[in-house]
């Protein structure tokens, strides 16, 4: 296994404590940052090429530079810790086992954009993560890494944890800000972008947990070191979440030189005994699936994109030959139907229609014309909503129709699910 940086110590006892963190070069990045000007910090992050780890892969340094520094209003950092993309659990591990790294990242980011407050928006179900983070925050205040005049620099910064209450959509940056303001988590129209009009109508940078966790490393080890760790424009360490039908599911850290095959067959031990690989979702439920023949794709933002999908949140879901692809689409559309925030009509109504049609086909009550209907409805959702949720929601339908149309046709022809696996509940409680 290659060298790790973000998760190096996460399996050691006491690794969440400040003493442990300080004994392992903790807050060294902050010390270096405070010796620079805010603009120099932004330049370092730009030089490193750090791309946002939340899903879009947008350069973090650029995002900070867009923050309207001339505005007379306060600036804010909003850390997006609403990790809800199906198949993604990397931020969960980072916050649970390396909370001070995130706090250090939040303070450096605040310093860079001129913010005095950072809010960490964690998802509602992360009760234990809130306890860990708040414990770490208390320790950091007590030792002068947070609060007034941090490390004698004259810079003030407060960090607070704000826990959501169960809404996937709160992971969209403007919906997160709405939720933080005490409203429904529904997206805003863009532009204006949060960098200009964000939290409380003030300039705000919204960054993912893993993105902010990389910032202290850049300051500590240098932007060139970071950029060289991985292929061009895909620098730095990356966390991969591997789940589904593999022997060793978990979070694996690697540079983005690694291939999907090395991750799935090497790190995660491959599919379970006696089964074969059917397909891989490489970046959380919202991205197109890849087939076994594409496993040699480089697991970088650009590598996965050339293979025809997206790295997204690096939530790799591995599907073996027992997986019915119509069932998979139905399962994911149940998710999207439930999580659609309801603001845009195509998404609110369309996800419900898609789910009902998929359910009908999966039960064996579908007709061939349903396949055109699925494609038609999907076409009327994708690209026609305020946020990327609409595009995400239709992806499982379009991608399974593209690669596994024969399975849909078999369901319709035989009037039943043609691949009922023993790990599923066939009928009974789920027929509602």
């Amino acid at each position, binding site marked *: 296994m290659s060298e790790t940086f973000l998760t190096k110590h996460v*399996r050691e*006892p006491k*690794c969440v404590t400040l003493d442990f963190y300080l004994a392992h070069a903790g807050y060294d990045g902050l010390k270096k940052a405070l010796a620079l000007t805010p603009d120099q910090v932004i330049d370092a992050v730009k030089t490193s090429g750090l791309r946002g780890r939340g899903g879009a892969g947008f350069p973090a340094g650029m995002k900070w530079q867009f923050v309207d520094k001339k505005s007379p209003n*306060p600036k804010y950092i909003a850390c997006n810790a609403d*990790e*809800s*993309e*199906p*198949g*993604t*659990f990397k931020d*969960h591990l980072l916050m*649970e*086992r390396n909370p001070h790294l995130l706090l250090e990242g939040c303070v450096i980011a605040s310093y860079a954009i001129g913010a005095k*407050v950072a809010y960490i928006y964690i*998802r*509602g*179900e*992360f*009760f*234990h993560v809130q306890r860990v983070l708040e414990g770490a925050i208390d320790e950091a205040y007590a030792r002068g890494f947070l609060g007034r005049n941090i490390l004698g620099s004259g810079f003030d910064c*407060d960090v607070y944890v*704000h*826990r*959501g*209450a*169960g*809404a*996937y959509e709160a992971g969209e940056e403007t919906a997160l800000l709405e*939720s933080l*303001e*005490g*409203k*429904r988590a529904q997206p805003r129209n863009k532009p204006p972008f949060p960098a200009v009009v964000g939290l*409380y109508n003030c300039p705000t940078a919204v960054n993912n947990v893993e993105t902010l966790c990389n910032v202290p490393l850049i300051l500590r080890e240098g932007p060139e070191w970071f950029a060289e760790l991985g292929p061009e424009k895909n620098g730095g360490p990356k966390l991969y*979440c*591997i*789940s*589904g*039908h593999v022997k060793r*599911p*978990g*979070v694996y850290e690697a540079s983005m030189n690694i291939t999907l095959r090395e991750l799935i067959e090497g790190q995660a031990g491959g599919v379970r005994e006696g089964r074969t690989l059917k397909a891989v*979702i490489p970046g959380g*439920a919202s991205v197109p699936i890849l087939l076994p023949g594409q496993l040699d794709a480089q697991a970088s933002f650009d590598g996965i994109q050339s293979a025809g999908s997206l790295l997204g949140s690096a939530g790799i*879901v591995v*599907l073996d030959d027992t*997986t019915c692809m119509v069932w998979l689409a139905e*399962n994911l559309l149940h*998710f999207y139907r*439930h*999580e659609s*925030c309801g603001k845009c009509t195509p998404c609110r109504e369309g996800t419900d229609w898609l789910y009902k049609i998929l359910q009908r086909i999966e039960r064996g009550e579908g007709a061939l014309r349903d396949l055109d209907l699925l494609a038609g409805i999907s076409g009327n959702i994708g690209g026609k909503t305020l946020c990327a949720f609409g595009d995400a929601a239709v992806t499982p339908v379009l991608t399974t129709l593209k690669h596994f149309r024969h399975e849909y046709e078999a369901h319709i022809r035989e009037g039943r699910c043609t691949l009922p696996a023993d*790990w*599923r*509940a066939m009928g*009974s*409680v*789920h027929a*509602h």
Partner: protein
Amino acid sequence: MSFHPKMAYDATFHQSVRTLVEEGPPFEYTPENRSRFDTVVARYPEGRQRSTVLPALYLVQYQQGYITGNAMRYVADLLQITAADVEDVVSYYSMFHTKPVGRYVLNVCRTLSCALNGAERVTEEMCAKLGIKPGETDETGTFTLLEVECLGACDRAPVVLINDAWHECLKPEDVGRLVDELRARGEAAVSGCHHDVEPGTT
């Protein structure tokens, strides 16, 4: 100014009290919860106390188990927003209960990675063991069974969130035992979230 002779758009117009029924017992925070509320509200800028609505509602739910109309009115008064603003939030977020729930709320993750590892069968076993369907509470008021979407612990599938604690890697065949242990030992029966991470401390 008014566009309709019988509708005066004066200062009282937006303070309509039509919206929310007076439901449930009278509500007020206990002194401890009131002081927790005061701590949290100070984290947000002056005039932005509305940001506290989620933490304020969580406190309500901890105190009385679910959120009533009267509690929403109370929170609205505290935050100086309308009761409709609070109801808007309560009805949106899936973790708020507006009906009484059991002593243990079993939230079974039903999304892809958990489902691939048997979550549907976990739900099936729970239904059989408790004699209820998803969304229902058993007649003793001990268990409420809910199916929820991805909980973000896909490597430890299937995952069940039991009140505010996580139970991981729950095999369908172990469901019956877990329910019995919850009855006998309460929250001590739950595995927690540090599964195989911090040896010796869990």
